[in-house]
């Protein structure tokens, strides 16, 4: 396993469409539920233990189980009741595969893979293991939303990165749990839901004016 390869995969500058997604933050900011650093900390912790755990587990499973990508994608569909979030996940999966094809030889994949599945596919192609796929997924879930918070709320970027540093151990813990469960049947993989993320994504998709795609 190459640490540098993991950094390449987890780099926020990877051109994989992430900058246009707020991870559900824009909707909660508009609803008045996230306005300062404490709110953001709560938002990120909740996101990490719900959609972060799910994304990490499916990325790890996709890395470990190359023959089961379609089944894993169905499992993500079943865990993503919001059509807006399914669309956002598939758009990011497509973007990730586009970037991945430029970096490593990728096996042929349906263009519409969900983001965690695509991340697992890239990790495998880059010679990484399920644990690395999981930590890249969990890290991406919080850093994407944190970066959106800097842009949306004008929060102090140092304070936000301080928060990300404090969340790093949680990220590791979530990724470890996700990787440990990567061999479980699809129905038994983590399914932690986040109702406000679902509702917020649906509401957000109806706005006339929005800055982020999701």
């Amino acid at each position: 396993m190459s640490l540098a390869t993991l950094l390449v995969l987890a780099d926020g500058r990877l051109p994989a469409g992430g900058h246009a997604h707020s991870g559900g933050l824009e909707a909660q900011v508009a609803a008045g539920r996230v306005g300062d650093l404490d709110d953001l900390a709560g938002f990120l912790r909740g996101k990490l233990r719900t959609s972060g755990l799910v994304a990490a587990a499916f990325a790890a499973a996709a890395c470990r189980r190359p023959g089961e990508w379609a089944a894993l994608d169905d499992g993500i569909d079943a865990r993503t009741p919001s059509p807006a979030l399914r669309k956002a996940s598939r758009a990011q999966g497509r973007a990730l595969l586009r970037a991945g094809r430029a970096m490593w030889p990728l096996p042929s994949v349906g263009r519409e893979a969900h983001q965690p599945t695509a991340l697992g596919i890239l990790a495998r192609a880059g010679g990484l293991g399920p644990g690395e796929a999981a930590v890249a997924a969990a890290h991406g879930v919080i850093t994407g939303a944190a970066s959106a918070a800097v842009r949306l709320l004008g929060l102090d970027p140092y304070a936000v990165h301080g928060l990300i540093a404090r969340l790093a151990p949680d990220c590791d813990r979530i990724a470890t749990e996700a990787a440990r469960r990567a061999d479980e049947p699809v129905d038994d993989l983590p399914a932690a839901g986040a109702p406000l993320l679902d509702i917020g994504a649906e509401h957000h998709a109806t706005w006339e004016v929005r800055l982020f795609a999701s």
Partner: protein
Amino acid sequence: MPHDHAHGGAWPRPSDNYVPHVHGPDEPPHSHPDPGVDPHQPLAGGARALRVGIGGPVGSGKTALVAALCRALGTELRLAVVTNDIYTTEDADFLLRNGVLPAERIRAVETGCCPHTAIRDDISANLDAVEELEEALGPLDLVLVESGGDNLTATFSKGLIDRQIFVVDVAGGDKVPRKGGPGVTAADLLVINKTDLAPLVGADLSVMERDAKARRGDLPTVFLSLVEDRAAGPVAEWIRELVRL
């Protein structure tokens, strides 16, 4: 390094004032836009649509130019538009309201508060939009990608577009071409827009022309007033030339 600019090649046809020249061995090392060498990859001849990026500061008239180009070219070319305005549907609505392009030929892309990122650093959402248009509409001749309003440093990635137009307006001040920045210096076509406003804002067009020339070498610059020329004649003609190649 001594070098000879008189390289051959189909692109571009040397402009009227281009003189092939050779640098002497005593000249210090330097670089400048080489008018004899196309900095771009060759256009994918016929395999896919020509992709033209239209960038420029907020309010310089990008969307109005896109609308004018749609009016001018919409009947002769198979055309589609991707818009990156921070408001998801506002620019698309502008085009629809003006009746210049049907809704299925327009895609809007959200940029997460970073319009330059979406056209330069991470072009995936725009590439998706272009490909979706090509898949939905069949073969196209031309896709216009309109950036969200940004500053003078915002340029398009060559991974996204084949050629780019940068739009500034005289109301932004006649010193804009002198300031330069990648948009002004490197765009394939610089459009100085709203010339009808020049007397009102005290802008000197000859200063702008001279500064643009100094910044851009032989890259073309056109003056435009969409009030007087609703079909954006010189820009439309520039695009026609590219499509014909």
